[in-house]
């Protein structure tokens, strides 16, 4: 394997890794097929027997998550010790030269995902017992929820692209069911359909990419594809750009990158635990995971390296634009949703900058603090029976546990030292700076500035959310109360993880995460910082601190006013953000009814003010001429002829129109009788 690794063209000279001696993981890895299978099987258990069980199916779902969490952590520890790379597969069918396999992958990347999904899933499932209490579709919810997680585990455990698609679609279907959980409300239905359709559009990209790669390489297996890349397969080089682009489009759908982001904020229609899991560990991470899996395709200079520019630009756009929208949302879940979009932008940017570890590290830390924030927001919603921050305020006094955990999550998200967000965001900034000097060029430099500005915005909107929710006077109707223990304990557990997860990767001090995720046979050739870049860390921290300071200034002072967010009514920007850059409107009207869209309005405007002036001028001149022509030639000569022709046509039509009866069967009569007449005529005259 070492020869394979050295034959790779490495993009980053100082990031060059040496293929480490990897163990095969032993029995632990051989039995890892249980990870997706246990939830998948228990899902049916919940579905069929859930209602008869004392816990109404919750206990089965919870057990499946407990199993995944324990197994994931066990693998994580084993991986930290030795480094595991194992691929198991069972042959399902052979179609010609194509072998279909069901397999399971146990390597650094998938172990990290197993752990995150298991741990976050466990917390969220525990919390859901309290949150969903009394729901009419309680059992069905847990069946769907387990399917959702199982789908993600199938996706993550897939050692080949085909199985990845299976998991990908399972996640899509389950997300549809979960977003539409409260389907009595038409809007929730629409949101579920929107998520599904948007994802499907992007999935076409994934499918095309997979087909291109599979046809070129002749195998669906990741290991074969990566090997083809390592060997600089000439066939794959020719199609690499399009394959890479198509796969990235697929990733953009699931990871909700601009302009496919529209489904994610609407997906808030689902129950809050769903949002929590969807944003933290499952679904939206799938795209980033795919990019990580196929990373050498983008990183190797012979292959789809041009797509990286697209990736980094899309990521930067998502990062910045969606962060701004979060500033004007009133619904606390939507603030978090746009925040997720922005953070996914960070991950994508990192992938585009060639920083495999940095992107995945942000995925890792983000999973903890974002699930924490969502669960805390859910706890607030549970207490005040409203999603709107204008109905909240002052909850600090009523729900201390939720308050403190939310604060920890917010600080971690904002990237305050020494919480986890700081370390992962810093890693991304460092990668961008490195990329700017090593092939990324001016784009990477601009994106670096955007990313620092993004840190400021992140801190700003989280400060706003915290102040509007927990400070000031309570403005809602219901009587707020702290949530039950089954909901607060998961919050506390996640808060601890959100605080300490960052310590797993401190450049120059302890690079555990890099080594763990980096344990793989084929070297990725990415870059990661050797030591903390104090300038960048300072810049990121300063941006975050400035964000919090500005946020405090803006929203703490006006904490008592009903319309607190009005302080952000900047003339042009505010309506733009409020309408989400008109992207939804564009999709709706641009597709449904183009004539009513903004384009038409713009044309109308230019018609009224620009063209009309020209036209009127020309018209006045032409009018004079026309009058002469009209009276002389037109009225006397031409009109007569035309009128006569029109009258003749009109008369004929008046008579003939009665043959158009609108009755289909009379047409059928004419058709068949006519056919026979034609045949007979043909026979007679031939």
């Amino acid at each position, binding site marked *: 394997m070492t020869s394979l690794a050295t034959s790779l063209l490495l993009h980053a000279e100082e990031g060059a890794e040496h293929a480490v001696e990897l163990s095969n993981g032993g029995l632990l890895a051989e039995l890892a097929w249980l990870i997706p299978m246990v939830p998948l099987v228990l899902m049916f258990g919940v579905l069929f027997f859930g209602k008869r069980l004392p816990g109404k199916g919750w206990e089965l779902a919870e057990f499946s998550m407990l199993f995944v969490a324990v197994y994931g952590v066990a693998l994580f520890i084993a991986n930290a010790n030795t480094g595991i790379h194992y691929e198991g597969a069972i042959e399902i069918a052979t179609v010609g030269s194509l072998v279909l396999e069901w397999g399971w992958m146990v390597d650094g990347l998938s172990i990290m995902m197993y752990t995150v999904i298991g741990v976050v899933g466990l917390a969220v499932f525990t919390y859901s017992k309290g949150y969903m209490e009394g729901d009419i579709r309680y059992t069905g919810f847990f069946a769907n929820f387990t399917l959702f997680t199982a789908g993600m585990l199938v996706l993550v455990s897939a050692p080949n692209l085909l199985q990845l698609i299976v998991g990908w679609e399972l996640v899509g279907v389950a997300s549809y069911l979960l977003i539409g959980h409260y389907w009595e409300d038409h809007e929730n239905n629409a949101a579920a359909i929107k998520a599904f359709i948007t994802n499907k559009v992007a999935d076409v990209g994934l499918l095309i990419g997979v087909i291109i790669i599979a046809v070129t390489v002749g195998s669906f297996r990741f290991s074969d594809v990566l090997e083809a890349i390592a060997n600089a397969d000439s066939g794959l080089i020719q199609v690499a750009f399009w394959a890479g682009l198509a796969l990235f489009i697929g990733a953009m759908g699931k990871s909700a990158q601009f302009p496919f982001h529209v489904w994610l904020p609407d997906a808030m229609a689902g129950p809050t635990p769903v949002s929590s899991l969807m944003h933290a560990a499952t679904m939206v991470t799938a795209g980033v995971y795919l990019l990580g899996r196929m990373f050498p395709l983008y990183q190797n200079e012979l292959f789809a390296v041009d797509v990286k520019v697209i990736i980094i630009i899309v990521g930067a756009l998502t990062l910045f634009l969606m962060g701004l929208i979060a500033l004007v949302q009133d619904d606390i879940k939507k603030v978090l949703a746009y925040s997720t979009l922005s953070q996914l932008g960070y991950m994508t940017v990192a992938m585009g900058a060639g920083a495999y570890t940095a992107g995945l590290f942000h995925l890792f830390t983000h999973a903890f603090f974002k699930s924490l924030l969502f669960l805390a927001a859910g706890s607030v919603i549970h207490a005040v029976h409203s999603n709107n921050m204008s109905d909240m305020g002052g909850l600090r006094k009523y729900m201390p546990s939720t308050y403190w955990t939310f604060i920890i999550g917010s600080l971690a998200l904002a990237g305050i030292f020494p919480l986890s967000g700081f370390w992962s965001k810093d890693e991304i900034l460092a990668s961008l700076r490195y990329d700017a000097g090593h092939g990324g060029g001016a784009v990477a430099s601009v994106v670096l500035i955007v990313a620092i500005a993004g840190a400021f915005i992140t801190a700003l909107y989280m400060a706003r959310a915290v102040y509007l929710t927990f400070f000031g006077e309570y403005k809602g109707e219901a009587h707020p109360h702290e949530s039950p223990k089954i909901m607060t304990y998961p919050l506390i557990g996640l808060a601890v993880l959100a605080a300490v997860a960052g310590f797993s990767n401190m450049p120059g001090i302890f690079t555990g995460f890099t080594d763990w995720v980096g344990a793989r046979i084929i070297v990725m050739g990415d870059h990661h910082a050797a030591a903390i870049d104090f300038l960048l860390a300072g810049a990121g921290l300063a941006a975050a601190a400035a964000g919090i300071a500005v946020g405090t200034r803006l929203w703490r002072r006006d904490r008592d006013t009903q319309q607190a967010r009005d302080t952000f009514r900047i003339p042009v920007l505010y309506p733009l953000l409020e309408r989400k850059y008109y992207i939804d409107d564009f999709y709706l009207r641009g597709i449904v009814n183009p004539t009513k869209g903004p384009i038409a309005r713009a044309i109308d405007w230019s018609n009224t003010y620009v063209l009309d002036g020209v036209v009127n001028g020309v018209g006045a001149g032409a009018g004079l001429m026309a009058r002469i022509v009209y009276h002389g030639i037109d009225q006397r000569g031409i009109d007569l002829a035309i009128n006569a022709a029109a009258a003749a046509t009109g008369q004929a039509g008046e008579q003939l129109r009665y043959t158009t009866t609108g009755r289909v069967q009379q047409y059928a009569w004419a058709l*068949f*009788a006519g056919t*026979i007449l034609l*045949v*007979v005529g043909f026979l007679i005259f031939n």
Partner: protein
Amino acid sequence: MEFTDWIADARNIVFLVIGVAIIGSAIRVVTSPNVVHAALMLVVALGGSAGLFLMLGAEFVAWTVVLVYIGAVIVLFLFGIMITRAPTGRDSVQLDHARRWPAALVALAMFVTIAWATTVSFGDALIADRVVRAEDLGAVLFSRYVIPFEVVSFVLLAALIGGIVLARQDPER
């Protein structure tokens, strides 16, 4: 060819049986006063046609007819019958037009025309035995005919979407 020679071939006896079944059930399809019975008679006619395909060595087509038509299309028809509350015999709603005889005349004329033309053209030409396996059909379908195949799949997709758009309840109502 004399009829006695023709009937001496055992397969032609099978053909006669199937043909009579097809024609008989087809006539019931167009005359039955009960819409559900008409749909079920169509199943018999289509099953008969699948039998003919088997006789002609077109195995895959035969099974496709069974699966797609008898399995899916007929179910669709039964749904259509239920949704539109079509008369199922007991009601006195007139299912046919009064113009039966002219229609029968047109149909008969069409039959005579076609049958006469084919008889004149092909006479006693025999069909050689050949069984086409699904594998051969698949190979040709995905090489020579792959573009028409894709076009047909687009037609199905369009029909799928069109069917949903047409039949769904207007959400604003």
